[in-house]
């Protein structure tokens, strides 16, 4: 006889369903395995290798596309002119020279996440806390790393000698305008760790940036630029800092005994791991191009108390060990 009733549904799910229903136990089961492995198949200390393509945007002064696993970021650098006569409180001599880049705001990074890069970032929304925090972190890092040389951004004019000048006084150069770099970072796909991808894209795009030859025309009283590529000049970056982010997964909870907690530090977290981990560590090491000794530029750690000085040191060491890879990725010999 025909059996019309379908068989009873099984009580096993595919791994994807298990991950959706109970993400924390799913990650924990993977990490507690005797060879700790993450759901994405990487070991806890393994990072995704980024691929960088520069110069793809033809209308930008510099551009880079960075892919780190499923996270993809496009960065375009556009240079605009700021006339010295438009500055309300012009800088006076050498006193403020060190801080001009920051005071005049000559570097303007902006991270755009509302591009539909993930279901949580729908297009058309104003930047949320994550996008604003990322933009600010990148701005702060650009200034503290001192990588852009202010000289590269100055458009100078040598004032011709007139009869009134003393005969043996040297030629006087004044800065007539500055180049302002608008660094737009768009995230086109988000699978965790947007900061590292965005920072790599910024460095690669700045390395690719070329500024046209510009000069002050005294008769027309405007800045003129040469369209010839041969006359354009590249930015001389003094420092190429490398950034590394880690997420910490811990079973500790105020409801359990402190000694029973287990934790793992996961390098380069992906989207799934980021949702489940609360504590994160970001380490930025400087990589000077002019022979100065490289040190730690920035450390950011918050969200929990698992990572102590010893673990932080391990993170710094791990980042340092990747210096060779970093140079290879950016195409530095």
């Amino acid at each position, binding site marked *: 006889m025909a059996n019309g009733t379908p068989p009873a549904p099984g009580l096993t799910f595919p791994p994807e369903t298990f991950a959706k229903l109970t993400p924390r136990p799913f990650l924990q089961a993977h990490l507690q395995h005797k060879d700790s492995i993450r759901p994405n198949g990487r070991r806890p200390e393994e990072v995704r290798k980024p691929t960088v393509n520069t110069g793809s945007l033809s209308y930008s002064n510099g551009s880079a596309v960075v892919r780190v696993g499923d996270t993809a970021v496009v960065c375009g650098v556009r240079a605009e002119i700021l006339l010295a006569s438009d500055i309300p409180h012009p800088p006076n001599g050498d006193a403020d020279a060190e*801080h001009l880049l*920051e005071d005049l705001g000559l570097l303007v990074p902006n991270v755009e996440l509302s591009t539909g890069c993930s279901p949580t970032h729908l297009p058309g929304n104003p930047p949320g*806390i*994550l996008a*604003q*925090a990322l*933009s*600010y*972190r990148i*701005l*702060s890092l650009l*200034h*503290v790393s001192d990588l852009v040389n202010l000289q590269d951004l100055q458009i100078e004019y040598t004032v011709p000698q007139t009869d009134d000048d003393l005969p043996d006084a040297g030629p006087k150069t004044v800065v007539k305008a500055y180049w302002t770099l608008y660094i737009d970072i768009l995230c086109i796909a988000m699978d965790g760790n947007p900061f590292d991808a965005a920072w790599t894209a910024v460095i690669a795009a700045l390395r690719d940036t070329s500024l046209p030859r510009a000069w002050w025309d005294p008769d027309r009283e405007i800045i003129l630029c040469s369209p010839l590529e041969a006359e354009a000049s590249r930015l001389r970056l003094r420092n190429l800092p490398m950034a590394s982010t880690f997420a910490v997964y811990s079973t500790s*909870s*105020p*409801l359990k005994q*402190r000694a029973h907690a287990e934790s793992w530090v996961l390098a380069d977290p992906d989207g799934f791991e980021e949702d489940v981990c*609360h*504590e*994160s560590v970001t380490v930025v090491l*400087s990589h000077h191009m002019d022979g100065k*000794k490289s*040190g*730690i*530029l*920035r*450390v*950011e*750690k*918050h*969200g*929990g*108390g*698992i*990572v*102590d*000085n010893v673990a*932080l*040191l391990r993170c*710094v060491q791990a980042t340092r060990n990747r210096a060779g890879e970093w140079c290879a990725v950016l195409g530095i010999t």
Partner: protein
Amino acid sequence: MGPEINHHPLSRADGSVSFSNNLYTILAAVNGPVEVQRRDELPEEAAIEVNIRPVAGVGGPRERWLESVVTAVLRSVLLVHMHPRTLIQITLQITKLPTQKLRGAWKDVSVLPALVNAAFLALADGGLPMQSTVTAELFTISEDGEIHASSAEGDLSACTGAFALAYNQHGEMLMNESAGNFSLEAWEKAGDTAAKFC
């Protein structure tokens, strides 16, 4: 001279404190647990919202970044599982800046310890359940390798690195925001000094 703390200056907030150290004065107010917006609701824990208001203006990306750091630190201090599907709202108003204009990374890092300490004291004043205490402090390394705790303005202008560190009563490091250009050894030394200080 240690920091100055003024308890419960605001009578209408659940908890409030006015905290001033060598550099900044922060007025912190806490409300909670209060009703939460549906979209911010978390099923098993309390949502934490931190609002930071600078001395002048409403604040921009910098304040949003500071808020994300302070929220992360406070999440590891508060007992969020005690009040699921509620909101703990913390407002931090900076009322006094240091007289010398700070720039860049020093500006970012120097305000964090005051913000964390003020928020913690306001939470305690409001009687919110917490799993640990937290103490934050600013340390600077001067050019000759000396570490200064509770740095004042003079220390900041002549330092190579500034660190904002927070520890809880078990000695666990809850926050570490460092900036500057320093060597590994200097940083390790700073960490050890900070652990003993806190």
